[in-house]
C-alpha cells in the first residue's frame, strides 16, 4: 500500500493514500452503512407506514382538548396510574389520530372519548429500530450507528481527497465496459452532487449516540460529574414541587386550551404528564412551530393547568435552537410530504453510494472471489428481507418482523454464494417485485375496504408501482424476444 510520502510525487501519493483510507473505511462499514441508509430512507415515511399498518382507525385532524382529557381518563381507568409518564399524541402530530399511552401501551381514542384499538405498527417499529440500533441492544446499537455517522464524514473527506478529477469529471457518466466504470461514475456523481445532504445526515446522525459521550466527558471535566449541568443550557431542566403525592389526574384540557390560545400558529404534537401522582408531576406540551426546524416549543403546566413556563426553544440562544433542530434536519420531517419525498430520494442515493462503493472495490480486483457474488446478494437481499418481514407481519407474526428480516437476509445473501453475481443482479430485483406484489395482494385481502382509505392507498399504490417497475423487464423481455427472433431469422434469409 502506498502511503503519504514527501517529494515531487506527494500530491499523487496523497491521492493514493486517501483512496486507500477511503477503501478500507468503506469496506469496514459498508454493510452497516447500507442497512442504515436504506432503512433511514424508508423511515422518512415512518408516519405513513404507521397509518398504513392500521388503516381502519378513525381519523380527524382537529385538536379537541376535552376529547383528549376523556381519552386519558378512560385509559387511566383501564391501566391505572403506575407509570412514569402518560402521553397524549394529537392528530396534528403528522398522523391524524388521537392516541393516549403510558410507557408500555398505546390506545387510539374514538370520537366519543372511549378507547379504541391498541396502537400497533410492528413492521414500522422494526424498520425504525433497524435504522436507530441495527436491532442491537439499544445503547450499544445507537452508539455504533452514530459512530457510522462520524465515519461517514471521514469517508466524505477521504473521498474528496481521493478524487483528483472531481471538477473534470463533474458531469461524466460512462456506461458499458464491464460495468465497473459505470459504478465508479455513478458513485462519484452521486457523492459529489449529494455532498451537502450527505454531510448534513452524517453530522446530525452522529449526534444521537455520541452526545452521551460528549456530555459525560464534559460533566466529569468541568461539572463534577453532573450531567444535568451540561445539558441544562440546551434542554430546560424539569420543574419540581408542583405536584401532590397521590393527586388526581391533571387538568390537561385547560393546558391544551391555553396553548391553542397563545400559540395559534403552532401545531400541538403531543403532551406528556411527567411523574404522575408525585411531587415532581407536571404537564409538558410539545408544539411544532411552522417555518422552523426546531422540534417544538415546549409549554409547561402545573397539574392544575397553571402555566409554569416555556422551554424557550423558539427564541432561545442560537446554539439551543441548533441542537433542538437536529431531529427534523436529520429526518426531513418539517414541511410535509414533499420534503419527505426529497429526503427519501436523497437517502436512496446515499444507499446507492454505499452499495456501489463496494462494487467498485470488488470490480477493480484482478480475480473474483465469493465476495463478488455475496455483495450483490446482500444489496438486493435487504429490500427483499424488508418486504418479506412486512408479509410475515401481515400474516400475524407481529413479533417476528425482526427475526424474519434477518433470516431472509441471511438466506438471500448466502444463496448469492451459490448463484452467479450476474444472475443475482437479474433475478433478485424480480424476486423483490414478486414479494411486493404478494405484499400488496395480502394487504388488500387482509384489510378489505379499509385498504382504500386515504391512510393506506398512497403507500399501497407506491409499493405496486415500484413492484411494476421491477417486474417490467420481465414482460419487456418476453414481448421483445419473439420479435427479435423473427427479425434475426428474416435477416438470415
Amino acid at each position, binding site marked *: 500500500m502506498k*502511503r*503519504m510520502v514527501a517529494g515531487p510525487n506527494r500530491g499523487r501519493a496523497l491521492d493514493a*493514500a*486517501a483512496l486507500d*483510507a477511503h477503501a*478500507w*473505511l468503506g469496506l*469496514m462499514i459498508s454493510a452497516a452503512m447500507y442497512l442504515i441508509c436504506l432503512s433511514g430512507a424508508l423511515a422518512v415515511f415512518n408516519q405513513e407506514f404507521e397509518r398504513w399498518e392500521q388503516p381502519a382507525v378513525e381519523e380527524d385532524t382537529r385538536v379537541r382538548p376535552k376529547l383528549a382529557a376523556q381519552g386519558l381518563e378512560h385509559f387511566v381507568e383501564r391501566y391505572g396510574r403506575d407509570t412514569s409518564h402518560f402521553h397524549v399524541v394529537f392528530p396534528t402530530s403528522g398522523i391524524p389520530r388521537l392516541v393516549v399511552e403510558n410507557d408500555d401501551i398505546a390506545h387510539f381514542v374514538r370520537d366519543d372519548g372511549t378507547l379504541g384499538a391498541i396502537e400497533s405498527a410492528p413492521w414500522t417499529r422494526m424498520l425504525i429500530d433497524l435504522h436507530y440500533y441495527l436491532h442491537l441492544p439499544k445503547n450499544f446499537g445507537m452508539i455504533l450507528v452514530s*459512530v457510522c*455517522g*462520524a*465515519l461517514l*464524514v*471521514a469517508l466524505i*473527506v*477521504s473521498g474528496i481527497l481521493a478524487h483528483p478529477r472531481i*471538477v473534470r469529471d*463533474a*458531469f*461524466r*457518466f*460512462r*456506461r*458499458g*465496459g*464491464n460495468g465497473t*466504470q459505470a459504478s465508479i461514475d455513478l458513485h462519484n*456523481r452521486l457523492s459529489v*452532487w*449529494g455532498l*451537502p445532504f450527505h454531510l448534513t445526515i*452524517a*453530522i446530525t446522525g*452522529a449526534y444521537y449516540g*455520541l*452526545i452521551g*459521550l*460528549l456530555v459525560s*466527558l*464534559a460533566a*466529569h*471535566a*468541568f461539572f463534577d460529574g453532573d450531567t444535568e449541568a*451540561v445539558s441544562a*443550557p*440546551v434542554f430546560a431542566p424539569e420543574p419540581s414541587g408542583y405536584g401532590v403525592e397521590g393527586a388526581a389526574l391533571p387538568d390537561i384540557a385547560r393546558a391544551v386550551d391555553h396553548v391553542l390560545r397563545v400559540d395559534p400558529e403552532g401545531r400541538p404534537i403531543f403532551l406528556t404528564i411527567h411523574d404522575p401522582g408525585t411531587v415532581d408531576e407536571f404537564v409538558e406540551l410539545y408544539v411544532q412551530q411552522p417555518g*422552523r*426546524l426546531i422540534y417544538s416549543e415546549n409549554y409547561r403546566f402545573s397539574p392544575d393547568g397553571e402555566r409554569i413556563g416555556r422551554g424557550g426553544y423558539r427564541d432561545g*440562544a442560537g*446554539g*439551543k435552537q441548533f441542537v433542538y433542530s437536529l431531529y427534523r434536519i436529520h429526518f426531513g420531517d418539517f*414541511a410535509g410530504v414533499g420534503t419527505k419525498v*426529497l429526503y427519501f430520494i*436523497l437517502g436512496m442515493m446515499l444507499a446507492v453510494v454505499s452499495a456501489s462503493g463496494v462494487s467498485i472495490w470488488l470490480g477493480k*480486483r*484482478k*480475480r*473474483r*472471489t*465469493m465476495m463478488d457474488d455475496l455483495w450483490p446478494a446482500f444489496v438486493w437481499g435487504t429490500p427483499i428481507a424488508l418486504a418479506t418481514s412486512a408479509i410475515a407481519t401481515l400474516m400475524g407474526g407481529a413479533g417476528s418482523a425482526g427475526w424474519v428480516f434477518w433470516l431472509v437476509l441471511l438466506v438471500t445473501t448466502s444463496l448469492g454464494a451459490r448463484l452467479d453475481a450476474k444472475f443475482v443482479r437479474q433475478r433478485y430485483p424480480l424476486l423483490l417485485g414478486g414479494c411486493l406484489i404478494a405484499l400488496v395482494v395480502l394487504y388488500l385481502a387482509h384489510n378489505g375496504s379499509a385498504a382504500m382509505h386515504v391512510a393506506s392507498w398512497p403507500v399501497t399504490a407506491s409499493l405496486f408501482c415500484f413492484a411494476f417497475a421491477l417486474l417490467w423487464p420481465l414482460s419487456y423481455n418476453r414481448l421483445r424476444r419473439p420479435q427479435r427472433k423473427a427479425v434475426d431469422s428474416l435477416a438470415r434469409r
Partner: protein
Amino acid sequence: MFNASVLALFAVFLCFFGLGWVYWGWKKANRFSSALGWALTASSVLAWIPAAGLQYGLVYMLFAPALLVWPYVSREASRIPSRDGQQRPREAPQWSVAQMVVNVGTAIVVALVLPLMAGILTVFISFQLPVTGASQAAIGILLLPLLTALYVFLYLASRRRMQWLLAGSTGTSLLAAVMYL
C-alpha cells in the same frame, strides 16, 4: 399559498438554470460561465426564502442541486465498448489470520479509540471558546464528527499508523490530564 408555490417553482427553475450554466462552463472549460452558474444556483435561495422561510429555504437550496443536476449528467452520458467476454479468473477466498488480527485491531482503533480521542479534544476546544453553554454544545456537536473524521483519515492514510496512534494518544492523555486533574 399560491405565491409560495410560484416562488418555489421559480427557485427550482433558477437552480436548474444555474446548474445549466455550470454545465455549459464545464463543457467549454469556461471558468466565468461556471462561476456565474454557481452564483445563479446560490441565488435560488432568494426565491426559496420567501417561498418556504429562511430555514427551510436554506435546506432546499443546499439539497436541490443533487436532484436537478441529472439531466445534465445524462446529456453527458457516453458508452464505452463492452468487455463482456473478459471474465476475471475466479479463486477461493484466502484468509490470513495475521491480516484479520490487523484489520480487527484497526477497526477497534477507528471505531472506538479515535472517536474517544476526538471527543476529549472536542470538549477541550468547546469549553475554551468564549461562548455560552448552548453554543458550546452546538459547536461540540459539529466538531466531534469532523474531528473524528480527521483523526480517522490521518490514521488510515498514515505510513506509520502505530507511531501516529502513540503520538495521538499521548497528546490526548496530556489534554485529559489538564482537564481532569
